[in-house]
């Protein structure tokens, strides 16, 4: 597999906007090999043996952190988890100093989750270790975007001509941005759906279609990607309440009937059952939500492996 890494020259994965279609394709292909590892009796390979990975999660996360931790363990890396509450950042240490301390401890890979857009870029330009963006503010969540693409590719065979609808809180969503950047590069058509306050028109300048009527979009969609409504931290200015949101934008059973039979239903989780998606649809035959989780592991193994290999050279 090492000869393949010559097509990958990045020590960091900061976002999908900066990747070419070829690079995205290459990560997905690398993930194919790692997905196969997960089906073996012994699910572990020595690819990152002797490497140290730090999960630096300044903003709380469970599923992404666990996915990275499992991915690193399957690659035989040593892992340290740092959460915001336990880090020196609560004692006033700057992100730069925290990173320098990690580097002095010979960390090879830093997986960063941070509330501030651009924090991974900030870190990557200041340290030699690999920086993997595990979500920065409303900016990017590249491994989530890659695992979404991996899942679409796995089920649909490719991207050309596909119509992907991303539904919900686009304005504050890093998942949406990473998906938009990557899907457009791979030749898919993207429609964003949600209230005007959460899906402003300015998104059209990126090359997507903006719609505020879910019913008009569903019949032509090949994939619907439902984003979590973060009502617990949403300012009240953005929409009147969950009841109205469900009425206008919830993927209810009735609206589910508008979907093509082979339309994929995706969700990055955690799901608000009965809000953005009806419970039966989330568990139904069109749902690939758990495939996304499984694929996330393979994609993250691929990303860690590729970036760490570049640092080694």
């Amino acid at each position, binding site marked *: 597999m090492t000869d393949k890494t010559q097509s990958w020259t990045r020590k960091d994965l900061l976002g999908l*906007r900066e990747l070419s279609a070829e690079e995205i394709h290459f990560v997905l292909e690398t993930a194919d090999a790692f997905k196969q590892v997960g089906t073996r009796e012994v699910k572990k390979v020595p690819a990152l043996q002797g490497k140290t990975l730090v999960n630096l999660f300044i903003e709380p996360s469970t599923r992404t952190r666990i996915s990275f931790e499992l991915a690193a363990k399957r690659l035989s890396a040593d892992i340290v988890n740092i959460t915001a509450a336990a880090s020196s950042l609560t004692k006033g240490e*700057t*992100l*730069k100093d925290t990173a320098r301390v990690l580097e002095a401890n010979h960390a090879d890979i830093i997986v960063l989750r*941070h509330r*501030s*857009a*651009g*924090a991974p*870029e*900030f870190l990557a330009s200041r340290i030699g270790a690999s920086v993997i963006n595990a979500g*920065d*503010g*409303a*900016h*990017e969540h590249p491994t989530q975007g890659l695992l979404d693409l991996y899942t679409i590719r796995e089920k649909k065979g490719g991207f050309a001509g596909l119509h992907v609808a991303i539904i919900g809180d686009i*304005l*504050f969503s*890093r998942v949406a*941005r990473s998906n938009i950047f990557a899907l457009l590069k791979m030749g898919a058509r993207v429609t964003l759906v949600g209230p005007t306050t959460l899906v*402003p028109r*300015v*998104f059209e*300048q*990126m090359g997507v279609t903006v719609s505020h009527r879910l019913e008009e979009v569903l019949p032509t969609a090949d994939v619907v990607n439902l984003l979590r409504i973060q009502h617990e931290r949403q300012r009240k200015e953005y929409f009147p309440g969950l009841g109205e949101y469900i009425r206008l934008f919830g993927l209810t059973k009735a609206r589910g009937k508008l979907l093509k039979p082979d339309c994929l239903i995706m969700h990055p989780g955690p799901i608000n059952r009965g809000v953005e998606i009806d419970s039966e649809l989330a568990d139904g035959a069109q749902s690939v939500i758990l495939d996304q989780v499984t694929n996330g592991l393979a994609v993250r193994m691929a990303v860690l492996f590729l970036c760490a290999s570049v640092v080694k050279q």
Partner: protein
Amino acid sequence: MNTCIRNGRIIDPANGRDEVGDLWIIDGRIGDGSEIRSASGADESKINEIDAKGLIVSPGLIDIHVHFREPGFGWKETIESGARAAAAGGFTTVVCMPNTSPVADSPSTIAWIKDRAAEMAKVRVLPTGAISKNLAGEELAPIGSLAQAGIVAITDDGKCIQNNELMRRAVEYARMVGVPVLDHCQDYDLVANGVVHEGYWSTLLGLPGWPAAGEEAIVARNVLLAESCDHHIHCQHISAAGSVRLLREARARGIKISGEVCPHHIALTDESIQNFDTNFKMNPPLRSQRDIDALLEGIADGTLDILASDHAPHAGFEKEVEFDAAPFGIIGLETELALFLDLLVHQQKTIGLSRLIEMLTVTPAKLLGLKSGTLSLGEAADITLINPNLEWTVDANTFQSASRNTPFDGWKLKGRAVRTIVAGETVWQLG
């Protein structure tokens, strides 16, 4: 010792003068040479000659918007280092903002600043006072007492009074005291936690947006209050096209309102933020090309008639953090004149040299009721010699300012001040 500045192009917009000639400095004041000729037994050899051939001889430049960080934040800039930066940029008078620690909202703090400036500063450093106590926007500062202590204007710069009733009373009160009101125009609800211009780039990068309407709403408020209170409100660092339109309409109706422009708002668009470099983070933020075009139009037609830097020093360790956590602001005194010369006069040809100098001298002087900004006979000899065609490269490491937070490091610019004279004494000269 008396001085004669020989053969320069003397541009003195206040007196409608633009001609090649000699300018005399007699006992620290502007003269015409007759003083020397009439003095019996005058010794020509005691005259200090400055050859200004090819240079512009301008009234000393005035920047009405700087932050010198003292008292309280001396690690960013002191009155001494800030004044050196001003001198190196060609400025003989600067007006410093009251967001210090303590806030300049009491006569004793104003007295401290004036004492410090008298002791340490190479150029004239004029204090402003706060509009509201502690810049909290809740109750009036003792504006009358501040005026007696020597402020030239009131402002809550960095903050903006949201309570329209309080602002109204402040403007009325300032009219009695005789000081203009300078306002940083920002509606807190519309702007919320915004850090960059709300538009394509904020959306793409997922950075909280600072919408143009957040400035325009307060400019509109200020137009209404300037009219109803019949007193001057000066809108600081105008950045948005809509603000220019509001000011143009108001000024056409004779309302006492004005606006200022900073170099960065015409030199850079919000596209510059895409690498999350905090040296491109300032308040108000860099906006779109459409906004730049409107600012240039406003400068060309006189709607915007004052130029300033909003010189806002921050230490490297303060700026070297996550984008949304970094403080707003960049330094500007040592690149200001060059950027305006290069962009407005050389590149865009928005205005001519004489108008540029007017906007940097007599217009701000009039706003603040200062006698400076002219080369009138008998006035203090504050003079800036400018080489409008000198090509140079910005090197932040050579700055006099104590801070380095500039987005213009490495820029090649055309034109700069080569000598700065305050009360007849050369306080800075290009080495």
